[in-house]
């Protein structure tokens, strides 16, 4: 006898729980709650129990009585029992001792995202991610806690499914990470402090980012199809003068030749080179189990146009995961294969700068068939004037630069739990990361771009074969008698990175070789890392936790003096909420104090053979003539036999908190990172080495900072859920030594940050200052507040304006940055946005300094254009020092809305066979800033015509079968 059971599901605050599932225990019957939390279900006569569950609440059983069934679901405290991936293993979140942040797919940035790191931009305290511009597939500059290096690398180590990545680029690819399809990623784990990262030894100083891709699930065959289609448009142009303005300026100030050059057209060159770009990103994945072998197969196809005409990236990707368990759960197998193929047509990004200063009075086309019909500056002989700029549009359409690259990353991980001793596990991980990049650039002989040599054809090819072998033993035991848990691990790791760079001769368009043949057909730089590592986790009383790690790395990059380095760390933590005085507290649901200390190393940015004295043979075109014979020359390279890794010691104090049954969670961390043996390219005393500068371990630097993050759910009821997450970071970087003789007062520091268009640098890295501190002249202004060209404050009052009159000013790196994300779900609708901010970062406006002057209009060769600030300054541009003025330094603080999106869940569609979700989004919604250039977010601090980051409108569809 069937009957109907009705009821209502609420949460602890009494609000309705929507879409909770209500199932008869042991049966197949079920339903979902409605928007008011109510349900009605026809159940068989013998049914006695209902199972009620909902995401975020866990499940609850209740008996079917006579009347209405009212159930109160308690929000699950899942966060703490979640398992977090750490280096060589996993750990329960509550057992974490280090400063670790995990971001899972539900919190990723949304919209058209083609490289993985953009998924977590603005989401993690202490991690700054700045995209390198708007080109398809372009990567980002990622800095964790400010970066620990000055001259070597500041990039974190990426480990994808247990395989450490080679950070170097791949020939023909926009960025190395662009090969990973973001749709395959399940989570990011960021290891920020030394106690978390030291297990990665010499590669961990800049933090470690562990990427875990989606796994197979054997429960049910599922298909997911997603498609994001978008349209990208520039929202801003570099402001330049109009053709009318150029005509009147040349008429007033130009020579007869210049006046004769000015044309009658009105061309907006920037408008001419950019387009509305379309992107389509389609992914389909299949998960399920074949004979209980869980698998996941995903296929992706991305077709992304750049806003710069002719830029086109196509990517096909396949990811396959097989993660079965054998031998009664004793053997876990994890097989990952990821392959991605990219076809890229590269636009010449030089056109961006050229379009800014190309003469707007000239037409795009010449009404003449020569040079592809494009207007070009010509010499008296009718050939292209080789010293003048080329037509920006011709730069795009006459240059055919294509690449084909692929990258495959794979690994097989076997984890065996011994039958006679289940506490002991053996884990073997064998992996590879291989890539092949090749491409060519062709310019026809009729193009003005390479007219003198009859066009050009060049090609390149690069192969990378990186291998990994790791083995560890782990022993875990629970000694109840002393209330202790131990987890001990010891392992060995072998990493080999081998690159082959092939050499090719250059040809003209007709296939005639130009220049010399390469001396060697290829070059194979290689380095190897051999390591031993160990870790001890100890938990006493579920309250006191200790983690100790050690790694010993041997590297082929160092000579016998410094081949090996040892990197230890120690962390302690105290789960205060487990103490009797807080246990059971409703207000404080989690409180953990963490202390960590450890040492990590940094070896990227050191060449493979810097410690060796080697001689290299010159190319054939750099030979020297004796008699009638040309001899290729042997040149000794500068070397430093004592070179070794940079070493960073990090101290970290952190507090994790959770209040009101973890409706408010977050953490605060204070850190102090001290780097010694900093690699600095230091001048070699004249006559003592073959190179005037050589990398040596001489500097010291520190980063001090505070990170804070909070995640809350201000509203959580049956109708509405509102999530808010906020993080903010303060980081201060200080250089404390740069010289062999510590703090040599005669050493000013070393310049960095080349400025385009002048012989000079924007930064001085000096003791007492931060890295990338601007070092410029004080501009002098007249009574009306206008800058006086070439006039600067004579700081030392010696009557001469020179290097000694510059001052150490603002920094390029921000000292505060923050991220704010929020998401509101109501019924079938959801909406959210992400805002990111950066403060006290300064930008040198190189567009203004190189284009804002009369000389760029009149031109040394041909007439050109100037940026609008010329109208204000009326600078002529005859003084070499003017570009080195602080007049061009601007506050680049900004607040940017990365994305805004709205989604709707259609629920079951197609005769109940699928669920459909749709979303609409806008990326790069707005930027609030005082900066007057195109975009204040410049990781280098010097704005020299970046590839504009467009505004993107996207429509996403997601179907689950």
């Amino acid at each position, binding site marked *: 006898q069937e009957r109907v059971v009705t009821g209502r599901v609420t949460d602890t605050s009494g609000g309705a729980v929507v879409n909770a599932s209500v199932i008869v225990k042991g049966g197949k019957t079920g339903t979902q709650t409605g928007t008011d939390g109510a349900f009605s279900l026809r159940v068989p006569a013998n049914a006695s129990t209902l199972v009620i569950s909902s995401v975020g609440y866990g499940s609850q059983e209740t008996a079917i009585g006579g009347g209405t069934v009212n159930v109160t679901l308690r929000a699950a405290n899942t966060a703490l029992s979640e398992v977090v991936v750490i280096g060589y293993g996993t750990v329960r979140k509550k057992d974490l001792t280090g400063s670790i942040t995990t971001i899972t797919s539900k919190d990723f940035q949304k919209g058209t995202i083609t490289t993985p790191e953009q998924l977590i931009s603005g989401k993690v305290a202490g991690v700054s991610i700045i995209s390198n511009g708007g080109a398809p597939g372009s990567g980002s500059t990622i800095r964790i806690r400010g970066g620990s290096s000055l001259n070597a690398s500041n990039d974190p180590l990426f480990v994808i499914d247990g395989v450490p990545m080679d950070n170097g680029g791949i020939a023909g690819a926009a960025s190395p990470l662009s090969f990973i399809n973001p749709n395959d990623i399940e989570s990011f784990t960021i290891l920020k402090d030394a106690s978390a990262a030291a297990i990665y030894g010499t590669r961990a100083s800049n933090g470690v980012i562990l990427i875990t891709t989606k796994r197979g699930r054997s429960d049910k065959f599922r298909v997911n199809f997603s498609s994001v289609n978008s349209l990208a448009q520039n929202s801003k142009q570099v402001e330049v003068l109009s053709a009318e303005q150029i005509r009147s300026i040349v008429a007033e100030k130009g020579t007869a030749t210049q006046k004769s050059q000015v044309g009658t057209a009105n061309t907006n060159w920037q408008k001419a080179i950019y387009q509305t770009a379309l992107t389509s990103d389609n992914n389909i994945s299949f998960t399920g189990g074949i004979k209980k072998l869980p698998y996941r197969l995903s296929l992706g196809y991305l077709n992304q146009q750049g806003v710069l005409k002719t830029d086109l990236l196509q990517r096909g990707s396949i990811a396959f995961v097989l993660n079965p368990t054998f031998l009664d759960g004793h053997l876990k197998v994890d097989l990952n294969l990821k392959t991605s193929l990219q076809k890229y047509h590269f636009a010449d990004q030089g056109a961006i700068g050229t379009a800014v200063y190309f003469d707007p009075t000239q037409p795009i086309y010449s009404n003449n068939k020569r040079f592809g019909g494009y207007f070009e500056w010509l010499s008296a002989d009718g050939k292209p004037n080789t010293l003048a700029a080329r037509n920006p549009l011709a730069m795009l359409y006459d240059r055919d630069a294509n690449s084909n690259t692929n990258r495959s990353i794979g690994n097989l991980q076997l984890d065996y739990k011994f039958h006679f001793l289940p506490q002991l596990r053996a884990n073997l991980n064998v992996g590879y990361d291989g890539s092949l990049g090749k491409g060519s650039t062709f310019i026809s002989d009729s193009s003005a771009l390479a007219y003198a040599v009859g066009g050009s054809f060049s090609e390149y090819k690069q192969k990378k074969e990186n291998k990994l072998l790791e083995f560890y033993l782990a022993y875990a035991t629970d000694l109840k008698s002393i209330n202790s848990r131990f987890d001990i691990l010891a392992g060995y790791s072998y990493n080999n990175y081998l690159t082959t760079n092939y050499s090719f001769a250059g040809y003209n368009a007709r296939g005639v070789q130009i220049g010399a043949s390469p001396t060697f057909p290829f070059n194979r730089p290689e380095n*190897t890392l051999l390591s031993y590592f160990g870790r001890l986790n100890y938990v006493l009383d579920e309250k006191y936790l200790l983690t100790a790690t050690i790694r010993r790395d041997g590297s082929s990059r160092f000579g016998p003096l410094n081949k090996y380095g040892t990197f230890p760390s120690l962390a302690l933590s105290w789960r205060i909420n487990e103490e009797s005085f807080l246990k059971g507290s409703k207000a404080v649901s989690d409180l953990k104090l963490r202390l960590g200390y450890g040492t990590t190393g940094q070896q990227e940015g050191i060449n493979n053979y810097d410690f060796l004295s080697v001689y290299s043979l010159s190319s054939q075109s750099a030979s020297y003539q*004796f008699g009638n014979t040309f001899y*290729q*020359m042997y*040149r000794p390279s500068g070397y430093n036999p004592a070179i070794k890794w940079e070493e960073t010691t990090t101290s970290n104090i952190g507090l994790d908190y959770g209040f009101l049954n973890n409706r408010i969670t977050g953490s605060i961390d204070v850190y102090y990172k001290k780097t010694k043996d900093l690699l600095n390219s230091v001048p070699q005393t004249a006559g*003592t080495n073959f190179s005037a500068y050589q990398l040596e371990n001489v500097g010291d630097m520190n980063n001090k900072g505070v990170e804070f993050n909070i995640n809350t759910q201000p509203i959580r009821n049956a109708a509405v859920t509102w999530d808010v997450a906020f993080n903010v970071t303060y980081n201060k970087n200080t250089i404390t030594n740069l010289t062999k003789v510590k703090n040599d007062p005669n050493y000013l520091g070393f310049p960095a940050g080349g400025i385009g268009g002048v012989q000079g640098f924007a930064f001085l890295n000096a003791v007492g200052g931060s890295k990338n501190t601007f070092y410029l002249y004080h501009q002098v202004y007249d009574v009306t507040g206008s800058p006086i060209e070439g006039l600067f404050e004579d700081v030392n009052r010696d009557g001469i304006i020179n290097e000694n009159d510059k001052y150490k000013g603002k920094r390029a790196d921000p000292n505060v940055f923050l991220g704010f994300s929020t998401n509101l779900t109501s019924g079938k609708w959801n909406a959210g946005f992400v805002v990111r901010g950066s403060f006290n970062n300064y930008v040198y406006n190189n567009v203004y300094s190189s284009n804002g002057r009369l000389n760029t209009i009149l031109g040394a060769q041909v007439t050109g254009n100037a940026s609008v600030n010329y109208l204000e300054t009326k600078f002529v541009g005859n003084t070499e020092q003017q570009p080195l003025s602080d007049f061009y330094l601007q506050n680049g603080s900004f607040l940017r809305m990365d994305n805004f999106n709205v989604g709707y869940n259609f629920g079951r569609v197609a005769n109940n066979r699928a669920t459909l979700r749709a979303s609409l989004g806008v990326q790069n919604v707005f930027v609030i800033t005082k900066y007057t250039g195109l975009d204040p977010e410049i990781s280098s601090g010097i704005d020299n015509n970046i590839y504009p980051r467009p505004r993107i409108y996207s429509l996403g569809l997601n179907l689950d079968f």
Partner: protein
Amino acid sequence: CTKKLDLVPTNDVGPGAVYSTSVGYKQAIAKVYGAMALTGNSGGAGSPDISPQIINDEGNSDFLRMYWYLQSLTTDEAGWTYHSNTDPVGIHQMNWSSVNQTVAGLYFRSYFLITLANDFIRQSSDENLSSRGITGTSADSIRKYKAEARFLRAYQYWVLMDLFANPPFVTDADPIGGPLPKQIQRKDLFTFIESELKDLETQLLAPRTNEYGRADQAAAWALLSRMYLNAQIYTGTPKYTEAITYCNKIIGAGYTLHPKYKELMLADNHLNTDEFIFTINYDGTYTQNWGGTTTLTHGPAGVPADSSGTSGNWNCIRITQQFVNLFDAQDIRGQFWTQGQNKNMTQLLDVTTDGYSSTKFRNKTRTGAPAPHMDPAKNWVDIDFPLFRLGEIYLTYAEAVLRGGTGGSNATALSYLNQLSVRARPNDPAASTYAQLTLPYIINERGRELFWECLRRTDLIRFGQFTTNAYLWAWKGGTPNGTAVDSKYNIFPIPAIDLTSNSNLVQNPGY
């Protein structure tokens, strides 16, 4: 297992491999020479010898271009148009400081050459040769290379003595990574170079018996004569007699003036062995770089491609009107390019048409044909640069005689000046009437004859005209008509970079 950590480069080799055969030695000595001609190990650019922290544009980092900047661009011979990243900032205006890139660039280029030479000298010691099993004629040739390495080192020390006066001093006795070099005083450095060159007189091959491009005894004599002519400046003691002695040795070796002055700086000027004593060699196919004679051919403003035999001009080098005025109408040596140019250098920067330029360097053969090894883009030139040629020796002889040196005669001196004057005026029947054995004539004649050949600054200093108001030219001291500057500018400052890394060094006065 740890052997896996012992990796070596694919194509680069260790010293043991280079210095195991006589071919390897020859390719190593080629670098000691080639580092004067080229900017690095790749044709054009791409593998610089000098770190970009010192010279960020590799094309500016070769020896000859920087040396020319400091010797010619500092004077009435030339001004430079731009102040962008290829600019020798403030060189013509005479306001350089110890952080000037060209000053540091030349200094580190010279020490790179000296360090290469020291390494070569060590590697070619008799002990090393015998331990590597190199004997017989191979060993004899290597001993000649070793003598040439010592000559090249002496030449670079002369450059440093002339420009920086008191530079740091390292020899083959100081290993790589050795202790901080000590500073040597100008006078002591003079003694060192003199003794090296005198020793080399017997070790180098006899004049005109070596391969083209390699130094012989005449090269050592030519450097000695130049040093002795300037000995008063370097040491306070004149050595005019010694200057004459060595001029006589060179002249006695059979050199003659090349008959046609306009053929001196052409693509096939390697044929001028009648006059050339020692050259830096360039080639459009095999010895490519953006400095050297490539700069001297492309650089002159306004010169069209079909005249220079290149792809076009860079519009950067122009000549002051004062220098142009040294030439009379019959004198062909200036080879001034006047079309579209104003004679007066009213503006120094940016205005490429103010000041004449010159077609002295042309990438064409004597017959007017294109340079045989020209690259398709016509960027690089085949023109060799004579560091020493007979024309200078004649002038040195005459001046030394005039200044009281013995061992020569006024009549011979005048006849040498006469030969130069006659060659300079091929269409003037009165050409032989110009020469005068007077100091003013000689300084002006040196300007005319050795125009753009990297001697002008040294000459003007010897005649007291470089920093003083005895002679003013456009933009000297940064003013349109020229002005006297502080006498400290007679010597360049030790670059700040080296001062901070070598505590043994004391800066030159005034900087």
